[in-house]
């Protein structure tokens, strides 16, 4: 059961290990690799968009293909890149930050990652199976109901599978942070990344179910003959918009809050100071999470909900700027007077402040409902959300990748290449999106595949496309950096940045599979920094070394997810050619085998679930002797290093 140490395992064994793992550290790597893959895919789609828009009257992409590319770009980036990559860091870091041996539900953790992987693959297979979805990442029903072919169905089923995984992971992190904290790790001593993960996970729990329902309505209408959005039969397409944005707005906070958390850690680490205003930061995080649910209709100002509704949602939206502002000032105050170290993560963090503030300011502009009639559906909106999502979330992902790379892989990315990458990315980002504010104000609509010559859009679009190319170059530099570092494979030791403040930096690298040989005792905020200042720099133990209970690996999560993946195809093709389906689907040739695929897929899933609940899975114990031997070896290694 216990890991074979020091021996090189074969490729098959490693693969099997990852397919069955329930270890949060390995699941983090799966999230990182799969999320990174989808990030590259979404990036390629972005390049296609910018290539098409670089010059007027371009026919590089056809109108229909353009719609598919923008839809898949948005959907991929939000659901399959940004969120999974954040989950990668949550998995890699949060259990270590709170002194836990693993997450609360290791089995569900594995189920969550495989559902995401299979959902993502499902969604992207649409490219090869008759065309991708083409109604935008928001997939408004009035548009998506009429979309021909199965594209939208791939969107619906794929999101349903991936979304289930996200919900499961959300529940898992809520539970983990509530129940698995080490002795002394009170709520008000939790590092900010843990706090933001907790609030983001709660948002997931409350925000994903409305999406699930909305997507079900869409699936039923398109494939099973219901009438939720069919106006002739009494349906109402605005229901989709509400459900989507009740999910959609909290979703943007699901993305940005963990990003805030990562930056908070980076600021205090590389300013070598405690985070300024810790409790205000926690309070602001919770408040943002709370407000996040009361502003969804700011995406629907032009729908016609009426002046009262618009006014209420406008005010609520503007109110969110207050806790966000609190955070900005606290970060600045953290840097203020600190002894700053300009590492790559810190450079990203410093660049984040002005970039994100610009996105926040345009957000407030849009929150003024009458003004939003001017901005809505123009490039101004595109500029706004890329300033917050790229300037906030993607900066945080890149910063986090450099920052936490040693914890995840045991090596250190090149700082030189990292800084080059950061500078190019930063310039490319502003070059791409700053000018889009003006494009929007000049009247260029979003989601239109080309524009005419002589409208004054040419130069600005070209600038924007050049910026996009710069960002692509930066990502390629990052890839080169990663490959070089992995090939060199120079291992680093504990606390590789030298300034680690929180518990995760106190652990040996590579982290043992049981994380903490001794349950740690937490004496205050920034546990490691505290021990460095007041003690001998090591975290005290809460008790003597004892045998550790561990969960067994399992292949069942993979099978459950695979079953749903198969069933998804069955459900999707089952509707082809059926008279009750929407015209766009009913016109397709009938697929008699689809029903059997559906049944087979569900059978795989349910049998796997049955096996899981039927067998007692009691896990195993790591004997005390093994832990003590590990500790001795570690001590010897450290003495050797000195």
């Amino acid at each position, binding site marked *: 059961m216990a890991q074979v140490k020091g021996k090189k395992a074969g490729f098959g064994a490693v693969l099997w290990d990852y397919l069955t793992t329930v270890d949060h550290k390995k699941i983090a790597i799966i999230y990182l690799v799969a999320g990174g893959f989808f990030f590259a895919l979404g990036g390629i789609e972005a390049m296609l968009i910018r290539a098409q828009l670089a010059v007027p009257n371009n026919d590089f992409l056809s109108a229909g293909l353009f719609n598919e590319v923008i839809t898949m770009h948005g959907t991929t980036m939000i659901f399959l890149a940004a969120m999974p990559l954040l989950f990668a860091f949550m998995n890699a870091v949060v259990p270590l930050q709170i002194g836990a041996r693993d997450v*609360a*539900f290791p089995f*569900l953790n594995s189920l969550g990652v495989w559902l995401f992987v299979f959902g993502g693959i499902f969604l992207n297979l649409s490219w090869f199976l008759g065309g991708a979805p083409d109604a935008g990442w928001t997939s408004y029903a009035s548009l998506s109901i009429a979309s021909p072919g199965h594209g939208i169905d791939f969107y619906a089923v794929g999101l349903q599978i991936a979304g289930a995984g996200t*919900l499961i992971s*959300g*529940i*898992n992190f*809520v*539970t983990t942070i*509530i*129940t*698995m904290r080490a002795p002394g790790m009170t709520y008000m001593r939790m590092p900010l990344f843990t706090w933001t993960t907790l609030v983001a996970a709660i948002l997931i*729990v*409350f*925000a*994903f*179910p*409305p999406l*699930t*329902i*909305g997507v*079900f*309505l869409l699936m*039923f*209408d398109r494939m*099973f*003959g*219901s*009438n*939720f959005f*069919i106006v*002739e*039969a*009494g*349906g*109402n397409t605005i*229901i989709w918009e*509400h*459900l989507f944005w*009740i999910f959609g707005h909290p979703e943007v906070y699901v993305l940005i809050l963990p990003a805030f958390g990562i930056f908070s850690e980076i600021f205090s680490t590389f300013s070598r100071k405690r985070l300024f205003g810790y409790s205000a930061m926690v309070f602001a995080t919770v408040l943002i999470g709370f407000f996040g649910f009361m502003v969804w209709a700011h995406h629907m100002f032009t729908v016609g909900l009426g002046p009262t509704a618009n006014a209420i949602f406008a005010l609520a939206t503007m109110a969110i700027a207050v806790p966000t502002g609190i955070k900005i000032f606290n970060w600045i105050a953290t840097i203020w007077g600190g002894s700053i170290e300009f590492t790559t993560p810190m450079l990203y963090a410093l660049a984040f402040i002005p970039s994100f503030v610009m996105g926040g300011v345009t957000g407030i502009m849009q929150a003024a409902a009458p003004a939003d009639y001017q901005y809505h559906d123009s490039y101004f909106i595109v500029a706004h959300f890329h300033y917050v999502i790229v300037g906030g979330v993607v900066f945080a992902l890149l910063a986090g990748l450099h920052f936490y790379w040693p914890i995840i892989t045991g090596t250190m990315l090149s700082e030189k290449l990292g800084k080059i990458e950061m500078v190019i990315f930063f310039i490319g980002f502003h070059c791409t999106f700053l000018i889009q504010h003006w494009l929007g104000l000049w009247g260029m609509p979003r989601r239109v595949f080309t524009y005419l010559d002589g409208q004054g859009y040419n130069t600005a679009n070209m600038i924007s496309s050049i910026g996009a190319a710069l960002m692509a170059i930066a990502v390629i530099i990052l890839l080169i950096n990663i490959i070089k570092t992995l090939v060199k494979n120079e291992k680093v030791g504990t606390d590789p940045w030298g300034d680690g403040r929180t518990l995760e930096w106190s652990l040996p690298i590579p982290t043992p599979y049981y994380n903490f040989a001794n349950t740690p005792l937490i004496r205050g905020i920034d546990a490691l920094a505290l021990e460095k200042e007041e003690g001998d720099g090591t975290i005290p133990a809460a008790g003597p070394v004892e045998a550790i*209970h561990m969960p067994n690996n399992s292949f069942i999560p993979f099978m459950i997810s695979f079953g749903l993946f198969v069933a998804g195809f069955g459900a999707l093709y089952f509707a082809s050619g059926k008279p*009750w389906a929407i015209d766009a689907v009913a016109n397709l040739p009938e697929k008699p085998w689809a029903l059997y695929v559906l049944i087979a897929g569900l059978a795989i899933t349910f049998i796997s679930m*049955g096996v899981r*609940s*039927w067998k*007692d899975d*009691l*896990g195993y114990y790591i004997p005390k002797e093994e832990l003590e031997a590990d500790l001795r070896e570690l001590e010897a290694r450290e003495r050797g290093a000195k």
Partner: protein
Amino acid sequence: MAEIRYDVPNEQWPVHPEKATLEGRNKFVGFWTFLAGETVLFASLFATYLALKDQVPSQEHLVAADLYHLELAFVMTMFLLTSSLTSVFAVYHMRNNNFGKMQLWLGITVLLGAGFLALEIYEFVEYVKLGHTFRSSAFGSAFYFLIGTHGFHVIVGLIWITLLIIRNANRGLSVYTAAKVNTASLYWHFIDVVWVFIFTIVYLLGVL
């Protein structure tokens, strides 16, 4: 994790066997979190239903006031409420380490739940005969999706509890199985609470 022991002597049986292990506590918190998500799921369904209530394509199509029978809905409510009570009895006996009685009350819970389900199917069949179907109108879609999702939860709950009864038959009670039974009963209560809302928002408001 405490050792898994079946046939624990009564004096060693914990007051809250379902929360005696770390796994049990995790399950408890995790499942409540899941139910929070389920609450929003049903809230979305209720909102959809209210938005589409009585939205039908033509004058001939039946609407809520023509269809609903409070008597039937009331009997269904009684079945489900009673089954919630019997599941409380089951958990009570679980806490007292009385395996046989726990199994018995779980069995009664399943029977009552099945009775509820039978009545629901009867109701659906009647409506379909009257032309009120999933595909006949937006109202129909919303009605069947809301009630059907609840019904689906009932089916899942029935299968779940039945499987628990069977799988534990030879095992007996331990802190491991107690956590499983407790989780299932939480789920069953949740389904029951949702039904109370269905009764008021769908049926009571429907006939008014």
